[in-house]
């Protein structure tokens, strides 16, 4: 069984006024341990598709089944809970709480899950070391570079033991060196720990590192490279 399966997935905005089909009839399957990029020009529906898979938006039509659960039928409160326990997110910006340190940001997710203090401490340290920020536990975001902040975001995304990580344009604001460093870490986590990563991007640096590329155009899948 695929980790993520969408069937006839569609999302229409402004249904009553000027309808816009951001995503239409998308059938997509993503297996565990994939390192997949969803690409396409601006307006192709990449972010919308990612939002639908991530439970941040509700489809107008179709199904989204994640690890056996049809999330399209969940209520908004159930979706929040589902995201907390099953999905990790890395966004383009504003990932971190500015008043918290790197460690506190990673711990925050576990706090929301109700995990105890000792376990939170241990795991946040472990994750930050895994992303190469073992010496930066007590730094706030404004004391970290853009690349370091995104690495903290990756650590936080992994803190909840998610089934997969969605990364929406994670390298958009980064220079080449930071991008390479971030992708190295994500690739390492995918290889060593089997973590599934799904990117929405139009950054060639990301596309080149992906093992599978799904191309969207006008809200539909135009092409897919084979899964390696």
């Amino acid at each position, binding site marked *: 069984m695929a980790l993520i399966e969408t069937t006839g997935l569609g999302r229409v905005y402004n249904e009553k006024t000027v309808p816009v089909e951001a995503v239409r009839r998308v059938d997509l399957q993503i297996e565990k341990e994939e390192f997949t990029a969803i690409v396409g020009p601006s307006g192709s529906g990449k*972010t919308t598709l990612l939002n639908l898979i*991530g439970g941040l938006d509700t489809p107008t039509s179709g199904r989204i089944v994640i690890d056996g659960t049809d999330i399209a039928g969940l209520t908004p*409160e159930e979706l*929040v809970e589902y995201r907390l326990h099953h999905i990790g997110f890395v966004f383009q910006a504003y990932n971190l709480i500015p008043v918290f340190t790197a460690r506190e940001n990673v711990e925050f997710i576990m706090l929301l899950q109700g995990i105890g203090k000792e376990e939170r401490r241990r795991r946040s340290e472990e994750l930050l070391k895994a992303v190469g920020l073992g010496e930066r536990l007590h730094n706030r975001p404004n004391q970290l570079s853009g690349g370091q902040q995104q690495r903290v975001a990756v650590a936080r995304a992994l803190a*909840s033991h998610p089934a997969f990580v969605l990364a929406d344009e994670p390298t958009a604001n980064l220079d080449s060196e930071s991008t390479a460093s971030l992708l190295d870490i994500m690739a390492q986590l995918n290889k060593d720990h089997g973590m599934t990563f799904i990117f929405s991007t139009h950054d060639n640096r990301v596309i080149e590192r992906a093992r599978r590329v799904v191309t969207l155009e006008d809200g539909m899948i135009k092409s897919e490279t084979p899964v390696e």
Partner: protein
Amino acid sequence: MLPSLAWKNIWRSKKRSFIIIAAIAFGLWGALLAGALMMGWGESVVNTAIDRDLGHIQLHKPDFIRDRELKLSIPSGMDVIRHIREIPGVKAVSGRTLVEGMAASAASTYGGEIAGIDPERAKQVTDIHNLIVAGAYFDSRGKNQIVVGKKLAERLNLKLHSKVVLSFQDVDNNLVYAAFRVNGIFKSESSEFDKTHVFVKQTDLFRLLNTAPIVHEIAVRADSSKLMPRIAAALKSSYPDLSVKTWKALSPEIAVTAAAMESWSYIFIAIILMALIFGITNTMLMAVMERIQELGILIAVGMQRKKVFVMILLETLMLSLTGGFCGMILGGGTIFVLSRTGIDFSRFASSLESFGAGTTLYPFLPVEMYVALVAMIIAAAALASAIPAWKAMRIQPSEAIRRF
């Protein structure tokens, strides 16, 4: 971690937070001071009336307050006075012989109440002796001495040692005319009282009334106002045939004024807080709008919307309580100093005297008002946070993220 996060979020914009905290602090400072002034004014009216003539408790024959007839004296009044002095908590007792009459001088005549007193006993219950502005209270030896109020002295064109003729009825309903010499002129906080009350020695009055010692009114001063209810209860029990009333019953308008001052203090503080709510709401709305993306991402990664609501509520509470405590320290400190030094309002003396208040006011606020203020601040903060917290709670992550 939510309280910690909320506290840290407040200080993300230090300037903005300091401004709103200062606004709350200064607003409450003014409100507390105004409230304390009102309370001080109310207490001044009460204390002035108690010190001037009411005392804490008065006893009469039941119909005397209404009819004020000479024959309605307290049976065995002198014995009653001696007994009351023995009651624990009673500081002093003074008996008064009261007669309605006329005071006449060469210039004019005026009606009023003639009070026959034992000067030494009366000094312990009221403070007329401290209000003498000309002459002296009473000389121990002289006969037919009279102490008059300044307003009456002006009306009758009386000076020290002026002759004034008092006319009244004795116990046999005979009209009595008696000449007195002005020994002292007093000025109280009530110009109305000064106009309508004169004091003579009881011994002189007994002689003129052609009667054995009688008293119509017994005024009691307690060691403290807290003992007043207990002493009044004891007197009612001991003298069921007499009317025993505290100052509140004797002068309900003063009691209402004092109670109204406390109510007005609360109302004034509530009005200031209501005005501050708008400022706090505006500040928090700005704080939420600035963080739309961040809050959207927090909801995206799994923070329950109700936790977002609680976080904004906590931020508002912490901001308001910080400003509130600063205001209470400022206000409480100012009131503490002024309650000892007093504020001189002598330039408004004539207005204050018409209300029976002294010209130096001592602001104060009871401790329970500070406790109530904390509750009011919490309620105001909760109200102020409603719109911003609701807005934060309703953020749609997908829309917030699209704003990048």
